[in-house]
């Protein structure tokens, strides 16, 4: 089943409330996906640094981890812990060496990297997951969220969404893909890093490959209609943008709302009811096989 939500803020005055609004939207989707939850937050950039979000456990000593990483790459690494995850702030020119070092550590996994993107996802009831990560206190320009009812892979943190397969890129998915195994092989051959057996990560990787080839988000979404086989409603985040796509059959639900302050997406209208000005918002159901995207200028 799964529930997905996304919020793209147009009015900067609303940015401090991004996490609170997104957590509230996600809360109404617990029934659609009670086994795991995840949040992607596009927060403030720190010039000269890249954010690498890693997943450990609630016992991981992230201070020691940041110090070890700093020694390994010969630069200072600061960090912000959030329950089982931490955001590591790494000098931009050290990104690759830091990633390689993280890959050698069996006790942590890389969840996302980017100038602005941070991803937090865990197994558990979505309201609890949001509270433990402190999502409601987070600020940002846009964010996407997912509540999972697993179908195509196990109930693990690895199987939770959002998936990130490129810097500042992420995707959440409601549905299931039929051709993910063959597409995964194709993407791996094209140099896209795919870390799990999850079908949705393949969709994320597909979009990353298309963006890498120079397509815009809108073009990448349109192109995917010819290559992805299965049921899907996707919400995709990039550093400046936010996109939505439904497959041509459109079994999976989707509602959108737009005001002068934001564009919002949710699996169900109920999830939008707590947003400011929703009663006078333009509310519509995105059409099948039509890509929708917004970008910050």
């Amino acid at each position, binding site marked *: 089943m799964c529930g997905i939500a996304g919020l793209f803020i147009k009015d900067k005055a609303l940015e401090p409330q991004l996490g609170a609004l997104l957590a509230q939207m996600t809360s109404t989707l617990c029934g659609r996906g009670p086994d795991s939850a995840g949040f992607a937050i596009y927060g403030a950039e720190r010039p000269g640094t890249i954010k690498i979000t890693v997943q450990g456990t609630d016992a991981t000593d992230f201070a020691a981890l940041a110090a070890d990483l700093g020694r390994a790459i010969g630069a200072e690494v600061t960090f912000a812990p959030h329950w089982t995850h931490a955001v590591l702030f790494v000098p931009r020119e050290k990104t690759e060496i830091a990633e390689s070092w993280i890959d050698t550590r069996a006790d942590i996994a890389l969840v996302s990297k980017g100038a602005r993107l941070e991803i937090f996802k865990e197994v558990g009831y979505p309201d609890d997951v949001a509270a433990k990560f402190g999502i409601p206190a987070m600020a940002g320009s846009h964010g996407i969220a997912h509540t999972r009812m697993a179908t195509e892979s196990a109930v693990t943190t690895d199987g939770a969404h959002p998936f990130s397969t490129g810097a500042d890129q992420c995707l959440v998915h409601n549905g299931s893909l039929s051709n993910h195994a063959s597409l995964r092989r194709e993407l791996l051959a094209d140099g896209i890093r795919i870390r799990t057996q999850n079908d949705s990560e393949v969709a994320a990787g597909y979009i990353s490959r298309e963006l890498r080839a120079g397509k815009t988000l809108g073009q990448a979404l349109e192109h995917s209609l010819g290559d992805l086989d299965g049921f899907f409603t996707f919400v995709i985040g990039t550093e400046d943008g936010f996109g939505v796509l439904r497959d*041509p*059959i*459109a079994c999976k*639900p989707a*509602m959108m709302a737009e005001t002068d302050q934001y564009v919002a997406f949710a699996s*169900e*209208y*109920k*999830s*939008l*009811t707590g947003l400011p000005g929703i009663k006078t918002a333009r*509310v*519509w*159901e995105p*059409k*099948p096989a039509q890509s929708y995207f917004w970008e910050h200028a």
Partner: protein
Amino acid sequence: MTTFDLETKTVRDLNAALHRLPLTGSAAPFQILNPNGEHSIAVGVDADVEIAIDGPVGYFCGGMCRQARITIDGNAGQGVGENMESGLIHVKGDASQSAGATGRGGLLLIEGNASARCGISMKGVDIVVKGDIGHLSGFMAQTGRMVVFGEAGESLGDSLYEARLYVRGPVASLGADCIAKEMRDTHRAELYDLLTAAGEAGRVDVGEFTRYGSARQLYTFHVDNAGAY
């Protein structure tokens, strides 16, 4: 008048109250406040009652109802009026997918658009949509009438049985075995009756509609296959 505020009471409380209404004789009207997109509002009602819902609803609103006359002052989520048996459901906004699915009777009136699979497998319900309908509408529709003032999406009436579809605007494509058919006097008369029920008689010209129905060429219609039963 019975007022139910869904900010303070649950859908289950509401539906239990509606299910307690007597099967015969008319009941005092219900007003439902703050529906906030909740699912399954006013399902399975079997009573002569007016139900006014003050805002948008989630899935399956008015499903399986008999007799009741339900007005939704907002949009409706998927499956509004699914398997309704009689009475009226009037959506003032848009309806999501599978509106009126498997409906057996009564009238589902949608002021705005309906999305995919409107009237899928309908079995006697009448559906009037004043806007457009999405793809695969009228899929395997068995009996009943569907009237669309605007456009129809792809594969209209795929594998249709005996339902009659009247569409005023363009149709993106017809599904398997669905064809345009002649409008005879009986069809103009029944369309006029449906427009009257929708409050549009005299404002919308029956001559602007095309009737679509089954070409009766699929397996079920071949007499050679009768021996299989």
